[in-house]
């Protein structure tokens, strides 16, 4: 595996550190910080700027922004990674079958994927969430479905490329079954592309979750979510700009980390795209 190469340049290193730090916060924060710290209202310190008592300030209800943004990491990362996982679980077999079997199956599946690609991902996610009723689980489903066609398309392209490689032809001539060909020869060789695309999808999923929650069609209060926090800040921008800046910076750092790491991964795993970042 050429994975370590991704850490060799500074961009990949910074990205990896950022991603690791946020993952750590997402996992550890809910264990260390009692739930009520993020919902406790300090009415005497509403919209307080950063102070010793509240290092990142407070929101309109006097809730501590540092605790909220730390716990929000859990919500955002959980939703985004579940959604991306869901799109892989659906998109991987779809793309593999389409690319490997080809012909009519490929035509039908890709026509469907192209149709889904005509719907802007955010619009599709918002519509599914609105129709199902917005909550945590449906936000995951909405983003997961919206991202599936992108993944399926890329996997199909890779599967098509790999299944015509001489070594696959050779393995087929040697009498290997289709199943063995896919599992042993094709799947391992398209994994780099899947990993790169998943990292990039994760960045988009974080943005999508923030967008959905910002519009009130994603995570619902009282859960802490970065998008929700930015939405709540809208009415207090003049007096308390930090209520928008703190969650905004959290989204930016996470997505920036994922993008930097994704770029470095792509350069390391796919030499053809060298410098394409």
């Amino acid at each position, binding site marked *: 595996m050429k994975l370590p190469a991704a850490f060799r340049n500074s961009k990949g290193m910074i990205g990896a550190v950022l991603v690791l730090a946020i993952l750590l916060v997402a996992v550890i924060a809910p264990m260390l910080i009692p739930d009520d710290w993020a919902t406790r209202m300090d009415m005497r310190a509403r919209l307080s700027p950063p102070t010793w008592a509240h290092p990142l300030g407070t929101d309109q209800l006097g809730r501590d922004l540092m605790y909220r943004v730390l716990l929000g990491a859990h919500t955002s990362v959980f939703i985004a990674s579940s959604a991306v996982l869901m799109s892989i679980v659906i998109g991987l077999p779809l793309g593999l079958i389409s690319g490997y079997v080809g012909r009519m199956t490929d035509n039908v599946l890709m*026509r469907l994927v*192209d149709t889904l690609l005509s719907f*802007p991902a955010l*619009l599709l996610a918002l519509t599914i969430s609105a*129709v199902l*009723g917005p909550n945590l689980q449906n936000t995951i489903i909405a983003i997961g479905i919206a991202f599936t066609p992108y993944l399926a398309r890329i996997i199909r392209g890779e599967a098509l490329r790999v299944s015509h490689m001489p070594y696959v032809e050779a393995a087929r001539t040697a009498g290997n079954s289709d199943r063995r060909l896919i599992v042993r020869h094709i799947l391992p060789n398209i994994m780099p592309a899947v990993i790169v695309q998943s990292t990039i999808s994760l960045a988009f999923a974080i943005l999508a979750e923030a967008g959905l929650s910002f519009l009130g069609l994603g995570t619902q209060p009282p859960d802490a979510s970065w*998008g929700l926090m930015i939405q709540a800040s809208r009415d207090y921008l003049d007096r308390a700009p930090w209520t928008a800046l703190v969650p*905004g910076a959290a*989204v930016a750092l996470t997505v920036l980390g994922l993008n930097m790491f994704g770029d470095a991964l792509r350069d390391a795993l796919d030499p053809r795209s060298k410098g394409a970042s």
Partner: protein
Amino acid sequence: MSYILNRILSMLLTLFLISAVTFAVTNILPGDVAMIIMGTQSNPEALAGLRESLGLNDPLLAQYGRWIGGMLSGDWGTSLVFKEPIAPLLLQKMTASALIVLLSMTIALVCAVPLGVWAAVYPNRWQDTASSSASLLGVSLPDFFWGIMMILLFARGLGWLPSSGFVDPGEDVLGAFRHALLPSLALGLGLMAHLTRMTRATMTGILNQEFIRVARAKGLGERTVIWRYALANAVGPVMTVAGLQVGYLFGSIIVVESLFNYTGMGWLTYQGLLNRDIPLIQATVFVVAAVVMLANLLVDLLYVVVDPRIRLS
């Protein structure tokens, strides 16, 4: 000619599939139009009566047929929230959105192409670092966050531009432009970042090719090599990406128009979604998907004009 005919046939098929997906998503999933109209507290008999009169008891296929028939004949139904026929409402909002979509596309292209070229011409130097870092930051921040920053800076802080609202260009051209500028910038920044990255990647690939070395070897000025030779070859791919971004833009306008209270297509879509106005959602989703598809078709056809190497067969 057969290429164009082929594309049109394929487009019609995709349009049909788009309509089927739109109808399926809004119908098969739970949610009852009659309940939405009358509220959850209404009496069961009245609900049943309304369901009957709306044809909600008919088989799904019949309902789909009625809906698609209406869409084709220009009768797009009536919005449950606005209590108005959807077709004229949608057309009016679309023209409002067209202004910010075109403006943001222009801002993005005008800035992204030079920035991307600049980064590609000076790889790994400060020009590249500056341009690449800025575009990386650009793709990493949500559009609504840019929007909020602009409201803080240009509307609240400096007081140069209004922070919300829409003005009809037919009534007040300058006012319309002033109201459209901030939403367009918020939309355009993310787009610009994507396009800068794409332009840089494409140009980097092209500048390493043989014909560029030949052009330099025969003594052509660097300016001619880059802007006439290299960029001419980058226009196609960059245009394709710009076309693909139309879909991204139509997703983003929902957030940005809601933030700026700019009453266009995105705002209308959001109102429909918030109030579960199923007929309005169906019409807007279908129209947006169709517009995105048409934009991509247009780009494909333009590609042929820009790049004469592509022979249609």
